[in-house]
């Protein structure tokens, strides 16, 4: 991935941070964005190869501006990773009673922002001569949420559909688009659930055929594969990284 240029959203979160760091370690120039403060520097300093922006990616002009800066500085854009996403376990819920504002905000962050990133990245990737998108979706977008987080589930299903549309429409331009659908992964996003119910992690692991929870490294290595030339004929697919979680009914 040497000399390739990557743009990663959600780069302060567990998965996005690891993805950005691993891309940098593989030799890519990585530009990162998150609404949150930049995380503590990677011990190897790997992720410091590009800018880190702190802004809300539902703001289209900020998204367009950042991507424009990347292209102005590097003259190319190869990879885009949409890893930004929220799951508000405390406020998300069933369609029967979810707050309308919560519903809209989750869709804005998880789905519309990804659309905005794609919209402004596609012309730049075309000018580069091709490239690849990876969107971090969820098994909840393929099946249903474990518990009712309907806005989250619908946003992830939408992200999967968005990815397929890009794959079909921009394949002729040499642009690939795939999703990763993680199952139970240990991240800061899900940590509150485990804090509230310490037995939950063990219960989830025991329900997973491979008998462990996933790690951000599992997701990041799937991302590396899908972006890399090893996946050059893979597009429009959804790579489930769940340890077999969705295979078994019991």
């Amino acid at each position, binding site marked *: 991935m040497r000399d390739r240029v990557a743009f990663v959203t959600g780069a302060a979160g567990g998965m996005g941070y690891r993805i950005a760091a691993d891309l940098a370690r593989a030799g890519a120039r990585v530009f990162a964005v998150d609404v949150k403060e930049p995380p503590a520097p990677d011990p190897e300093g790997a992720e410091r190869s590009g800018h880190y922006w702190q802004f809300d990616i539902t703001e289209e002009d900020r998204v367009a501006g950042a991507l424009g800066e990347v292209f102005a500085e590097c003259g190319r854009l190869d990879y885009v990773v949409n890893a930004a996403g929220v799951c508000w376990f405390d406020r998300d819920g069933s369609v029967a009673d979810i707050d309308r504002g919560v519903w809209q905000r989750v869709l804005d962050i998880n789905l519309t922002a990804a659309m905005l990133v794609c919209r402004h990245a596609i012309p730049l990737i075309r000018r580069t001569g091709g490239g690849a998108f990876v969107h971090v979706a969820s098994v909840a977008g393929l099946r249903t949420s474990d518990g009712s987080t309907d806005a989250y589930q619908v946003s992830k299903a939408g992200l999967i559909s968005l990815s*397929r549309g890009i794959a079909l429409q921009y394949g002729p331009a040499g642009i690939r688009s795939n999703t990763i659908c993680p199952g139970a992964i240990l991240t800061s996003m899900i940590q509150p659930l485990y804090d509230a119910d310490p037995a939950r992690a063990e219960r989830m692991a025991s329900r997973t*055929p491979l008998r462990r929870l996933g790690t951000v490294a599992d997701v990041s290595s799937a991302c590396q594969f899908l972006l890399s030339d090893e996946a050059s*004929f*893979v597009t429009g*697919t959804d790579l*489930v990284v769940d*340890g077999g979680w969705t295979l078994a009914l019991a």
Partner: protein
Amino acid sequence: MVQQGRPATATEEVDDANETTAPHVPALLTGRVALVTGGTRGIGRGIAEVLCAAGARVVITGRDAVRGQKVAEEISAHGSACLFTAADVRSLAQMESAAALTREQFGSLDVLVHNAGVYPEVLLEQMTEADWDLVHDTNLKSTFFAFRACLPLLKQSQAGRIVLVSSITGPITGYPGLAHYGASKAGMDGFMRTAAIEVAPFGITVNAVAPGSIRTEGLADLGAEAIASMEALIPLHRLGDTHEIGSTVLYLASNLASFVTGQSIVVDGGQTLPEIPG
């Protein structure tokens, strides 16, 4: 007629035109040992070339010993050691012999790639029981045989991996003349999902790769026009290369995919995406 979704696993009758090139892939399998059934031509050969280039020592099986020896030598010249052993995947005893030879020669077995398969086209109205049985014995029953023969060795591995070469034909699409083939490939996917659960406690993963239209030796016979019409149906506007199936197998066989099991990765350049193909 447009060759939509034409399967492209190893065929029985193909030209001898494949020239070995060393694929550029990361060395993700250093020290690992792999067995690739149907590894002497087409997709199977492409997979073996990639795994060898990634550092694995590889045993390939096939039925034509003269061809097999030659291909193994050609692959070895560009990567790690590659050996051929003659074996018919329709025989459990022969699969067990192939597994035993792998252990004798290389000391262990970490990765089974079950790729061998046939796709003789015959419409259902003309299909005989023998037609059906040939395809199901070679493609599906053999999956169980290869699995059974290799499982004892895979359980001893620190990173046991099984990768099945399925297809888009059957699991996702249909193709006239290939009802038996499609059923066998969908059967492989069904086998995979239960096998993945059963061997997960041993740390073994079971996954599949579903190729779309891949450029193999026999394809040139179809003519440039037929190939161009196939390419027009693929969003990436080209056929896949056997090494592109190999590099997806490589991901699944490596440590990178240790949390991925029971999955089929479609490698079709987006061919199955449109609502109405073509």
